């Protein structure tokens, strides 16, 4: 290990020295900064795409590298491994990492004030509330087991009464009636279901006690201390990007058909639907990414229901107050 760090440090040192000699002003002007997203490129990250396209990050002095996610990518791991400065995470996993793994993370903002994850069913066989899940089969991505456990616990339902099966992100079993519901982004999958000739019905977990943020903006304590200026710059540029991306949710997704959304396998109409549906979940009176004391407390309480002990110290709102 000392060898590796030494070599990395050496390489970085030389690289910096090289750029500093050659281009002192440019190097100073654009600081490299890497963010790890939570999933593949879709409308969930529209604000960042816009910020990069319009040069908002560059204007703030950031040279932003954007890393897309995937099923095996744990955004928190990218932070721990030092491959990104900032990551978009689910708050339950992040707080679990802090309490159980001793990871030194701080949540510095929240993209979704209300988690878009919900229980999606078909209108002809609707699941209206958690109580309706009793005796039914719900497909849940294995990584989200904690979330469904929280929903059941907070609504006094015994886990044994609900059949939970793995969800492989394909809505076909739901449409064909093989399962009764799935746990998915309500901003996304209802569109696909309508394309398949069925009407979707859904409720947000948020409205049934699981009062969590999602896509929480997470950094390590070390980054928070050493890159404060860059983090402020990232928050400012990202907020600017989001405001514009949501102003007319249908405007930008079509423009990214051949850039950000090229080859994702998803349709542009789907992204427009997504961006429109997520608008009320992202916008906040205190500005995008804001975290009110009340909401932080709600997050901590919801997590307590599944035995995850969050504290106010895990959230850092000082950056938000400065932008």
């Amino acid at each position, binding site marked *: 290990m000392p060898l*590796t760090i030494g070599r990395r440090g050496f390489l970085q040192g030389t690289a910096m020295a090289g750029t500093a000699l050659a281009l002192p002003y440019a190097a100073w002007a654009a600081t490299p900064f890497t963010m790890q997203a939570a999933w*593949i490129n879709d409308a969930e990250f529209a604000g960042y795409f816009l910020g990069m396209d319009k040069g908002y990050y560059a204007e703030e002095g950031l040279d932003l590298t954007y890393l897309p996610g995937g099923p095996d990518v744990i955004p928190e791991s990218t932070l721990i491994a030092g491959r990104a400065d900032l990551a978009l995470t689910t708050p339950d996993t992040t707080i679990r*990492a802090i309490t159980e793994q001793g990871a030194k993370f701080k949540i510095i903002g929240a993209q979704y004030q209300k988690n878009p994850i919900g229980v999606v069913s078909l209108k002809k066989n609707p699941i209206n509330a958690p109580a309706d899940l009793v005796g039914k089969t719900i497909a849940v991505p294995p990584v989200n087991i904690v979330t469904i456990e929280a929903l059941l616990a907070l609504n006094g339902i015994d886990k044994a009464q609900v059949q939970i099966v793995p969800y492989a992100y394909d809505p076909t079993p739901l449409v*064909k009636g093989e399962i009764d519901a799935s746990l998915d982004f309500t901003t*996304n999958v209802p569109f696909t279901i309508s*394309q*398949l000739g069925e009407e979707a019905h859904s409720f947000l977990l948020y409205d049934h006690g699981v009062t969590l943020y999602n896509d929480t903006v997470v950094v390590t304590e070390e980054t928070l201390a050493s890159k404060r200026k860059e983090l402020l710059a990232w928050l400012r540029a990202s907020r600017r990007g989001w405001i514009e991306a949501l102003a007319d949710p249908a405007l930008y997704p079509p423009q990214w058909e051949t850039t950000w959304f090229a*080859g994702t396998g998803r349709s542009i109409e789907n992204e427009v639907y997504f961006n429109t549906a997520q608008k009320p979940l992202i916008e906040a009176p205190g500005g995008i990414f804001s975290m009110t004391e009340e909401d932080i407390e709600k997050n901590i309480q919801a997590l307590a229901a599944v035995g995850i002990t969050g504290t106010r110290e895990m959230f850092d709102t000082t950056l938000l107050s400065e932008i």
Partner: protein
Amino acid sequence: MANRRRFRHSPVLRNLLILLMVWEVAGQLKLVAGGALPPLSDIAIRFWQDRADYPGHVAATVWSSTLGFLIGNVLAIGAGVLFVLFPKVQRLARGVNIAVFALPAIAIAPILVLTLEGNAPRIVLAALGVYFVTMSATVVGLSQYDTRAADVIRAYGGGNWKVMRLVRLRGAVPDILGGLRIAAPNAVLGAILAEFGGGGRWGLGTYLLGSLGRGEPARLWGIGLMATLIAGLSYAVFALISARVLGSTRSVTLNTALPPDGADADAPLGLRVSLAVGAAVLPFVLWWAFIRLTGVPEMIARTPWGVVDYLFLADSSAVARAKLGAALLETLPITALGMVAGLGFAFLLAIASRMMPGFIRAFMPVALVTQTMPLVALTPLLVLMLGRGLSVTLWITISVTFFPAFVLLVQGIQRVPQSVLDLPRAYGASAWKELRMVSVPAALPYLFAATRLTVPRALLGVMIAEWLATGTGLGNLLNQSRGYLDYGMIWTVASVSVCLSVAFYYAVLAVERRTLTRLGMQVVE
């Protein structure tokens, strides 16, 4: 001859056409799983509509798999040469070799994504897919050389190295090419699996992931068939090269003297024991070195000691052991069943290929598709047809396991000497009787070799089914642990599944050695 071949081929084409037409009709009438199996025409139309998407993804997949293929093969051929020159090194590396052969890719993919960055997980998984095949082909090729040619070199004063360079390496070319042919599709599949899990924008795996949410089976089949096509082409390229090369390297007459056996059975006991211990320890040393060299922090990357600590010493170790134990209890019985089912299916097919060659030849393309089609694309079809219980697990396990076993068994049955077959025929025995009394017993070594291939893969098959359909056992525990950010458990499941696969392999090997020695037969490598 040419005439006969044409005659034999036409029923195959006919059967294949019938098969495709049945598929089309079944798809059009939504006969299978309420339309979850799309008709071929829909797949073709969808493919045409998506044609702009494919080049970028195909290029990325081909690039990663080519790099992995090159790196894996350079290592494999290098290792093969080393092993043949120094049999003790081969003994020492045995544990590593078996571990690479047996490791379940889905357990390793998350580990690679955790520890490596960018394209590296894809390349490594592709390289891991090719290493064992090429390495063993190299060893076999180098071991079976023409001793007469070597004698010529020696007579002119050449040493071991000269023999290696001028005789053995040249003689091994056909075998190595045969290995590369099988290795090439493995590289493609490894790369796609890592793309599916690992972030990044391009690659068929990534495309598949984005397309899953559309609920559009025609697209998923299109991607799957594209994967099949790339894998098939990579196979064909090396098949073609080896067909070209083969002619010049075969000796014209048959050499009856076997090459000297490299095994050092007469080595002192102390040396043999220390080599065996070294072989068992080496994989763990490499694991440890890998983590130290990548420099990933201990919190997410566990060393072997870290896993031991997690399972036995840490405060939460009792909980971890309980979770792991419960998962193993769910997984192991089904794995045993899956081994039997996979092997049984392969055996039936192999017999059928003897009794009904036309049917089997028509079935082969279907079999090939099952080997290269990403199972995640078929999940809805499978759960709609088979539910989420035992039968889906068994079918997934069969589809993951049967193919290599089938190929070996067919080889075994085909290699029964003609003179032996003539005896039952002369006495007017039926084809079944001949098969039962001669071919099958004679193919016993191949049956064992097939079992060795099947057994570690059965665990992989069951874990895939658990991950995609049933939500139980080790496969599910691995995925859930990501949600819990339980890094210790991720590493534990990965290492336990590798250790189990290796243990299965050795268990079969032990039975095989004993039985074949008793029957006076040779072990097939």
